[in-house]
């Protein structure tokens, strides 16, 4: 059995495509068998909704009169530092950016109530954002100061561009030390008091296409409540991570860089987020459709939480000091049960990514495809797979000599 994306798109146009989410496919394949399921199902939709730090938005605010050159100056959006190193009227804001006067961790643990992620959420929500710029002034861009409100509906372009999203598997975090720690994986209680993890597991996009056989550059996706595209492999894309017999990575591995028009996205799916003691970030909703081109591809989508193994990593000492030590390997089925046992101790678990929202994303995408408003795209280029040998490297520090 094999299908092409064009054939599936024809069925979508005719309103005949069979679309199911990555949770439903598990039972369908069990009941009908892989072969029959692959014949009947055209698309499996996936979803994830978790904090994704490497997210940003860029925009073009339009030229003021007289003109001002943002590039090389300083710019703030609601007091949060924006990047003004591009052209005269282009600005970029990263999810982790903070106001200059935020106390950060000087009062430990810092609260990080408002940062770049929150600016992006408010911008998408249609709220006015205060832009303050100081520039150096040139003959053609004489103005040196600008203070104005901007709104997403008035600015020329607003684009969400996330260099690294949708991690294919990730660490589960624990704290073996004797004091509480505040991490990007949440609050970790001392003496292995809890475990936090972040994945939608069996619903997660790259865990349903472990070898990137359908997801590639140009793949159209659900991004932040609107439509986006895979722009590139994400930073730290690491296809060479160890994998189980089904090809599912057992460590953090593949990632995606995503891009999309912010103007059609929704604040429910781009949530400004605060990690106590760590910083601000953005919780991003992403859903990726997987075209069932073959039985093999269908089989990958039947992955269950029990098949996905995550490493439990100590964030008090091992993680900060780059010590490659794994405390335990656990399945997401176990993590999702609410507690797991390590060394005879029952440890409560909690998630940072929302499974119930991930399911809503997968179902929204399903509805878009069924109703014909979302057609699938053929990737224009594959993501680097295992054959690339690509591996994430640590920083090699070298002495700086004058």
């Amino acid at each position: 059995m094999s299908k092409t994306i064009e054939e599936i798109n024809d069925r979508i146009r005719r309103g005949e495509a069979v679309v199911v989410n990555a949770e439903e496919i598990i039972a369908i394949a069990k009941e009908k068998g892989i072969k029959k399921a692959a014949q009947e199902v055209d698309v499996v939709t996936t979803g994830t909704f978790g904090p994704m730090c490497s997210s940003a938005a860029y925009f073009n605010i339009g030229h003021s009169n007289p003109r001002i050159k943002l590039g090389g100056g300083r710019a703030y959006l609601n007091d949060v530092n924006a990047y003004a190193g591009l052209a005269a009227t282009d600005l970029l804001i990263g999810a982790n950016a903070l106001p200059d006067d935020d106390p950060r961790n000087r009062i430990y643990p810092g609260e990080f109530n408002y940062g770049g992620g929150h600016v992006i959420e408010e911008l998408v929500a249609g709220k006015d954002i205060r832009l303050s710029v100081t520039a150096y002034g040139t003959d053609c861009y004489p103005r040196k100061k600008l203070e104005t409100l901007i709104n997403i509906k008035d600015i020329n372009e607003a684009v969400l561009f996330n260099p690294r999203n949708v991690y294919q598997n990730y660490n589960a975090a624990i704290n073996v030390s004797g004091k509480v720690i505040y991490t990007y994986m949440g609050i970790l209680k001392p003496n292995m008091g809890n475990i936090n993890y972040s994945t939608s597991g069996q619903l997660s996009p790259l865990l349903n296409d472990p070898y990137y056989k359908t997801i590639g550059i140009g793949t159209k996706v659900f991004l932040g409540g609107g439509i986006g595209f895979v722009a590139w492999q994400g930073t730290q894309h690491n296809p060479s991570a160890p994998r189980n017999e089904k090809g599912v990575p057992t460590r953090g591995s593949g990632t995606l860089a995503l891009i999309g028009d912010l103007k059609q996205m929704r604040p429910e799916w781009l949530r400004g987020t605060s990690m106590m003691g760590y910083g601000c970030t953005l919780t991003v909703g992403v859903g990726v459709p997987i075209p069932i081109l073959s039985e093999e591809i269908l089989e990958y989508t039947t992955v269950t939480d029990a098949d996905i193994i995550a490493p439990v990593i100590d964030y008090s000492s091992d993680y900060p000091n780059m010590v490659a030590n794994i405390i335990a390997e656990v399945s997401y089925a176990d993590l999702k049960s609410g507690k797991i046992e390590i060394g005879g101790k029952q440890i409560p678990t909690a998630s940072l990514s929302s499974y119930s929202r991930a399911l809503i994303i997968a179902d929204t995408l399903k509805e878009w495809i069924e109703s014909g408003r979302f057609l699938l795209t053929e990737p224009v280029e594959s993501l680097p797979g295992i054959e690339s040998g690509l591996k994430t490297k640590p920083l090699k520090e070298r002495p700086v000599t004058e």
Partner: protein
Amino acid sequence: MIVSKKIVLHFPVRLVDRAIVYHLIKDYDLEFNIMKASIIPDAEGLMVIELRGEQANYDKGIKYLTETGVRIQSLGQNVLRNDERCTHCGACVTVCPTKAFKLDPDSRLISFDAGKCIACGLCLKACPPRAMELHF
């Protein structure tokens, strides 16, 4: 006059190991009933107590606690969830000392039982989208 009040005590790190409660009984002749205690080494300690005794002693006891650096909060404060902001991630579940949050294994939604909440405030800053709010 005998008074009896439920209060939440927040101990800063440096006080966690000191026998403050012992002094309340011995020096101020107050009876107390610990309803909930959670002391994490190197972090803030937290205790919900019902304190009972002569009004004058009660006032002196509270004064003593405040002077030693314990923050006192009455249970009149209300912590509510802003359901519009809650993403049902679950980060609060293991943070709450009274298990006021529960994960439904089927829907994977997180329920919040305000009746179990003692308004300790721990979830307010632990909730990533800041869905938990303090109301007076």
